[in-house]
């Protein structure tokens, strides 16, 4: 355990703990939140816009729902949105970059020009456009953001592959008569994937922010499902007099995005250290 802390650093470990906490809260939301039915959306109008107190730790919103329960349930949507956006983007970007970098020539040109088309649009604008076209809903907003996200991974993967392709051990494999597909998957992919995974960890935060932005704009999940971006939007109307409605989900977004960023940094530093050891 202490070796683990040393490898990630104090900040990294703390952030990992925070992320695990949020993940556990999200996973066990129905059992951990004080008012699970309100967390899922049942209104409770007799207690609307109550300030934080012993009965409602983070106060209640305009429909009288416990903000803490809503934040806990919102973690389900926001975390899965952040992780799925990054996962989808990796799923598209990594193979595209691998193919482009490994085969080069016209394959590279074709794939990279397609990538450039996506990079030419401002990311959030394209995401908003797509989300509007696809209609609201969690999956649609995830797809909309992932479509603007994958080109970065494709570019990164390609750059990594270009470096690795010239490595003597890759050359040695091809001299041994190893097939191209096997060289790409067995000898190049593991080396290229690691920095990409670190980048992916760094990107969960921004992905989560973008997903929250979409739902803030009304393009995310449909009510009454709790979502942090949507909650900030709802709380905006009561800000600053009844600040807790917007502040609680806002702080949650901030903490989780920060935690993923710091954890990603910690992973990257570790990666850098490891590289120096081996070469």
């Amino acid at each position: 355990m202490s070796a683990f802390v040393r490898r990630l650093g104090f900040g990294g470990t703390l952030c990992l703990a925070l992320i695990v906490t949020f993940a556990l809260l999200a996973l066990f939301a129905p059992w951990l939140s004080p008012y699970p039915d309100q967390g899922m959306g049942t209104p409770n109008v007799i207690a609307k816009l109550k300030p934080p107190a012993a009965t409602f730790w983070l106060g209640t919103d305009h429909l009288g729902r416990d903000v803490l329960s809503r934040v806990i349930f919102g973690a389900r949507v926001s975390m899965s949105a952040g992780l799925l956006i990054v996962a989808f983007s990796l799923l598209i970007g990594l193979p595209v970059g691998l193919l482009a970098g490994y085969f080069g020539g016209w394959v590279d040109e074709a794939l990279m020009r397609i990538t450039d088309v996506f990079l030419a649009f401002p990311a959030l604008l394209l995401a908003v456009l797509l989300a509007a076209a696809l209609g609201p809903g969690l999956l649609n907003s995830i797809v909309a953001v992932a479509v603007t996200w994958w080109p970065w991974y494709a570019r990164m993967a390609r750059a990594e592959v270009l470096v690795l392709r010239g490595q003597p051990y890759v050359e040695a494999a091809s001299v041994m008569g190893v097939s191209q597909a096997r060289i790409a998957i067995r000898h190049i992919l593991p080396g290229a994937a690691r920095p990409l995974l670190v980048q992916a960890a760094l990107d969960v935060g921004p992905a989560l922010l973008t997903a929250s932005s979409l739902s803030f704009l009304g393009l995310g999940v449909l009510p009454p499902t709790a979502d942090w971006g949507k909650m900030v939007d709802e709380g905006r109307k009561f800000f600053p007099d009844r600040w807790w409605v917007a502040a609680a989900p806002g702080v949650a977004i901030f903490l989780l995005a920060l935690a993923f960023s710091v954890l990603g940094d910690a992973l990257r530093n570790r990666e850098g250290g490891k590289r120096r050891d081996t070469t």
Partner: protein
Amino acid sequence: MTAPLVEVHDLVVRYKSRGLFAAPFKPAVNGVTLSLPAGSTLGLVGESGSGKSSLLRALLRLVPVESGTISLGGEDWLAIDGPALRRARHSIGFVAQNPFLSLSPRLTIAQILAEPLLARGDKPGAEMKDRIALLLSRCGLPANFLPLRASELSGGQAQRVSIARALALSPRLLVLDEPTSALDVSVQAQILNLLLDLKADSGLSMLFVTHNLKVVAHLAEQLMVMRQGSVVEVGATERVMADPAQAYTRELIGFGRRR
């Protein structure tokens, strides 16, 4: 005299220059002819930029050839392509200069040694494991090295693994690109002795590229000295070492002594 295993005739290798109007590069290998009888060793010597590595890379089909012919065991080596080339590559083993760069950093020694066997289409299993352990022991390393990674080995040990990998498919020709120059002197001697043993055991043909004449003189029956893409001297090792015809060869011998 046995039939030559490798015959290179008038080989020219030229790297492509970038840009439409850029002047073409001078050929890296300029009209080299050589022949390597089966079971013998040819030492290819020259300073950096002499074209020895380009010649070797052309022989390994890593760089395109501009003109000339290479035949391997009587077949036109440059005409083979695609999947046939992949199979044909099994008859050449290659040992690179720096073992830490030429062994995959993320694979274990066992996985590294399995790779050529799998490429040939062998089935993984106990039989393959035995074969890998045997390969490793032939190169002087016990089987407890198998689960390690290249970064955990010393330079000499890693180069032994690299030689074991090159020998995995019982190739007809072993191509060595400065296999000892990344190692310190005592380890160099061990690796050279290993190669001598392997040669005595299995009658392996070798093409040994180096800038250090002294290293290769141990091993090679024939020496070929290259400078700026061309062969300046070729002959039996004793003759070249005792009575070099070219001033350049004398320089190289002197360089070997000084070290």
